[in-house]
């Protein structure tokens, strides 16, 4: 059996005393492509934020590449893709400048960028199909193109593990396809992927395992659930909304 890349054991996370994750255990091994599914507010985003150390665990443990999270320092092995790019204070930044941030984990704070850094940024821009937009300000890109910029930023660091938070939410068809193809290439090169998704869309064939989070617990861990069968269950959990404007609480309780 291959080594675990991520191991969460009995993880508990609470915000202001309100539990969001209750006793979650999850193991991801090298080469797997694991999708975390669940309704809004189920705790699926919190789970990956806990894995990355962005929210503290109140109990349990997280291990990354065989090392406890607290002592983990090899961040260059991980590429993180957040849900969206923050608006920031309005200072413009080009696509290339944002993607180049992805090299910092490898290069460190003090060393100026070299030829290898530029080559990796070029390759990442090419992989997501944004090479022709490299000099444009990110703010002028569509939502899907901005998402691809964030994926390129993670890829530029040449990570072994990609962690993505809803990479396809509200993204146009062209960008979903570009993203699926970038992900296929990454997996073909031996990469491991943990992603949170509302719905899988064109990603479905790439996913090797699905984990369904429901009310802070893992409700399913195994094959990608078949949407029709899943919906037929009496106590079914909508893992994708019928309409983006729908209030989440209506269906998820």
């Amino acid at each position: 059996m291959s080594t675990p890349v991520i191991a969460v054991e009995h993880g508990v996370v609470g915000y202001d005393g309100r539990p969001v994750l209750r006793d979650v255990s999850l193991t991801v091994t090298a080469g797997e492509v694991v999708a975390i599914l669940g309704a809004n507010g189920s705790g699926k985003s919190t789970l990956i934020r806990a894995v990355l150390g962005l929210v503290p665990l109140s109990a349990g443990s997280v291990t990354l590449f065989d090392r406890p999270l607290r002592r983990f320092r090899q961040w260059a092995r991980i590429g993180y893709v957040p849900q969206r790019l923050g608006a920031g204070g309005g200072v413009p930044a080009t696509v290339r400048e944002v993607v180049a941030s992805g090299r910092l984990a490898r290069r460190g704070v003090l060393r100026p960028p070299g030829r290898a850094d530029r080559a990796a940024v070029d390759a990442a821009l090419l992989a997501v199909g944004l090479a022709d937009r490299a000099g444009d300000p990110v703010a002028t890109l569509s939502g899907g193109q901005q998402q691809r910029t964030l994926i390129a930023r993670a890829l530029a660091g040449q990570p072994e593990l990609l962690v993505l938070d809803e990479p396809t939410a509200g993204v146009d068809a062209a960008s979903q396809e570009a993203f699926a193809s970038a992900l296929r290439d990454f997996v073909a090169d031996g990469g491991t992927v943990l992603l949170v998704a509302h719905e899988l869309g064109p990603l479905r064939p790439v996913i090797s395992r699905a984990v369904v989070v429901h009310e802070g617990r893992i409700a399913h861990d195994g094959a990608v659930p078949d949407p029709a069968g899943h919906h037929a269950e009496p106590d079914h959990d909508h893992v994708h909304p019928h309409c983006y404007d729908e209030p989440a609480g209506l269906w998820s309780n």
Partner: protein
Amino acid sequence: MGLFQYSYMQHALIGALVIGLAAPALGIYLVQRRLALIGDGVGHVALTGVGAGLLLNRSPVLVAVLVATAGAIAIEVVRARGRTSGDLALALLFYGGIAGGVLLVGLSDATSANLNAYLFGSLITTSRADVITIAVLGAAILVTMIALRPALFAVSHDEEYARVSGLPVRTLNLLIAVSTAVTVTIAMRAVGVLLISALMVVPVATAQQITRGFRSTMTAAMALGLFAAGSGIWVAATADTAPGASVVLVAIASFLVVAVAGGVWRKLRQRSTPVAASTAEPHEVVLGRS
């Protein structure tokens, strides 16, 4: 230009130019993380340092550096906690800072003219030693802000991503806080506590109207800061106006000129290529909407 043969005018000019270059180089990070007014806050705190310095008969600028640094670190700690009360805590710090400054200056033997010199700047009374302090600290700020640009950009742009990249986020944030305190205190002599934020923020605001990237914005903002400082001092010398206020008004005038010119240019460009503008963006198709 005959005025510049006097050494006090040369000192004034050198001090202003260094600050004109360094303040926007730091300010761009503050603007990006929506802390455009932090310079103002630190300036208020620095005033307490000035008061303490005058009262203790120590160098007001030196004491102000220490007090402003402590204040900037306190603000950064409150900001990093990210609680809603942070806003109020900052307000308390700002008002406490300026009230403490006024109180301490009043207790000392200093006159209200002394207080005014720190509130609105007093380049004319800047000594040779002051200019050297400004030049050395200004150069240090400038080099740090340029050399660490990739890391500081990453932290200001997306702090969580920077954390997952393993960057020393807390150290970099404290570095920005301390640099703000140092810039504010050295700029205090040139433009005064109440106008410092303008030199950090206005050139950046002007530059970002016409630039496309972070690096180009930084370069343009530094050029604009240098221009505002140089021409502001020249205006002050020839028209006998307050130097600090002149520098800031030149910076704001540049902002207005660029804003109007940029608007006109965009309008003209739109008229010449009406089709290209509307077809540049691909149509968004949101999947999953049924």
